């Protein structure tokens, strides 16, 4: 695992919104083909960290590296970085005025200069791979939450990103629709896509992640192989968090 070269490196990143210190020195490495899961309570800073990596939020201190290059340097153009990363949001955030196909084909066409036919061909393939053949011309409002999120995954994947950032991709879904989205992420893992995932689905994190990091009040308190974190957490905060999740399940 540690032999593979790092795709994403986060070094001592801090971020405050006003008086609220959201990230307090995060260190994190995601190696090629690896999936790292960030777990932790709401407000622990998971989503902020993903937004910082995609340069949607500017960090205060520290560095973030993509393929060994510092992307948080002021001289780096954020657009160029975002074109190498894919992001999937909790609330899907599909473009409501575009069809499923157009949603997926937009970035390859406009951000990567792919021809229309080629971009649509690729979008069609991706949609089919996530079980959405026949839904190409449907607008997001006509799709279920699970279908919308699978379109969003296809959209993030379309330009062939170096890594995918998945932010609570199942949290906004009705329980019966969670499975289909998790299956899509499982497939990404099987293909060896490098991923950084925030999730509340512990069973899923255990199955897909190579490493699990527990975030608490803006710090990574504990990290390790999923089996270890879930069966023998070392920190009291981790134990308490996992216990609360279990209780909520009942």
């Amino acid at each position, binding site marked *: 695992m540690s032999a593979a070269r790092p795709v994403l490196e986060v070094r001592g990143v801090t971020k405050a919104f006003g008086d609220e210190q959201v990230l307090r020195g995060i260190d994190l490495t995601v190696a090629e083909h690896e999936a790292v899961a960030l777990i932790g309570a709401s407000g622990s800073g998971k989503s902020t960290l993903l937004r910082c990596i*995609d340069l*949607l939020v500017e960090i205060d201190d520290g560095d973030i590296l993509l393929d060994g290059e510092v992307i948080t340097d002021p001289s780096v153009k*954020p*657009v160029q970085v*975002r*074109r190498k*990363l*894919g*992001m999937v*949001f909790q*609330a899907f*955030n*599909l*473009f*409501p*005025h575009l069809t499923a196909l157009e949603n997926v084909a*937009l*970035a390859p066409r*406009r*951000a*990567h200069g792919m021809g229309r036919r080629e971009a649509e061909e690729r979008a069609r393939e991706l949609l089919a791979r996530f079980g959405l053949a026949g839904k190409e011309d449907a607008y*997001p*409002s*006509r*799709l*279920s*939450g699970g279908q919308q999120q699978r379109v969003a995954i296809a*959209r*993030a994947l379309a*330009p062939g990103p170096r890594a995918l950032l998945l932010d609570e991709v199942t949290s906004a879904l009705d329980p019966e629709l969670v499975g289909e989205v998790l299956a899509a992420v499982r497939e990404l893992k099987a293909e060896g896509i490098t991923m950084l995932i925030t999730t509340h689905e512990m069973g899923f994190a255990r199955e897909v992640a190579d490493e699990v990091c527990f975030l608490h009040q803006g710090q990574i308190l504990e990290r390790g192989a999923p089996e270890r974190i879930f069966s023998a957490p070392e920190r009291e905060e981790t134990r308490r968090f996992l216990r609360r999740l279990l209780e909520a399940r009942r």
Partner: protein
Amino acid sequence: MPAIDPTDRRAVRAAARRRRDRRGVAIAAASSLVVLGGLAALVVTSPGWPEVRATFFSWEAFRTSFPDVLRGFWLDVKLFMVVEAIVLVLGLAIALVRTSRAPALFPLRLLLAVYTDVMRGVPTILLVYLIGFGIPALALEGLPSDPVLLGGGALALAYSAYVAEVYRAGLDSVDVSQRQAALAVGLDRVQVLRFVVLPQAVRRVVPPLLNDFISLQKDVALISVLGPLEAFRVAQIQAATDFNYTPLIAAALLYICVTIPLARVVDRMQARRRHAAGPEGAAA
């Protein structure tokens, strides 16, 4: 599984519903008769009615004045279409500058904020006056002196301010999550605006924009204060020469012929939007 047999209860309910509907229709008809009939009776029995009928609703005066009024109205329609086209483009440009955050545009944003406030704060008729008589008074070489041009310019300035605000509201109504998603897929700022924000904003503001169309269609008559022979002005002149106001009624009818269909189009679009919002809300 047994087929659903209509039971007595069903028949009873249907009968009750029919009774309710019939009663509703009867009440609406009676109420309309009383109110409208009462109003008509009031007008017709008023002491001045015979005179009003002769001066406002003379068929003879209508027939003789209508061709001229109609010719004047054609000028209104032409002016409306040109001004509307300018307003749509200018309003959008103003809204885009005002919502952009580019530092270089700061002075322009400041000027446009003042412009919008002033244009919306001054009565349109005053603006038509000021521009229509003020610009020629400057006696500057190259400035237009044609009243239609100046009146149209005044209307374009006034309405661009209104329309810019409508566009701006539309741009603001697009959720930040849409911008974020567009940035996240790798679009640059201009592309975010062009492919994601603007299409959604424009779709949302079509009904309020059409409402402004309707206002403009009527306000074109304001240029009459500068003298061009548009419908209202023609009607006014004829009324003054014959002491008969029927030409004004003719002009009013012409305006209505254009504005009412436009208003129905807006209603229909809004109804369709509400209808479309139903399943959208359910799926979200």
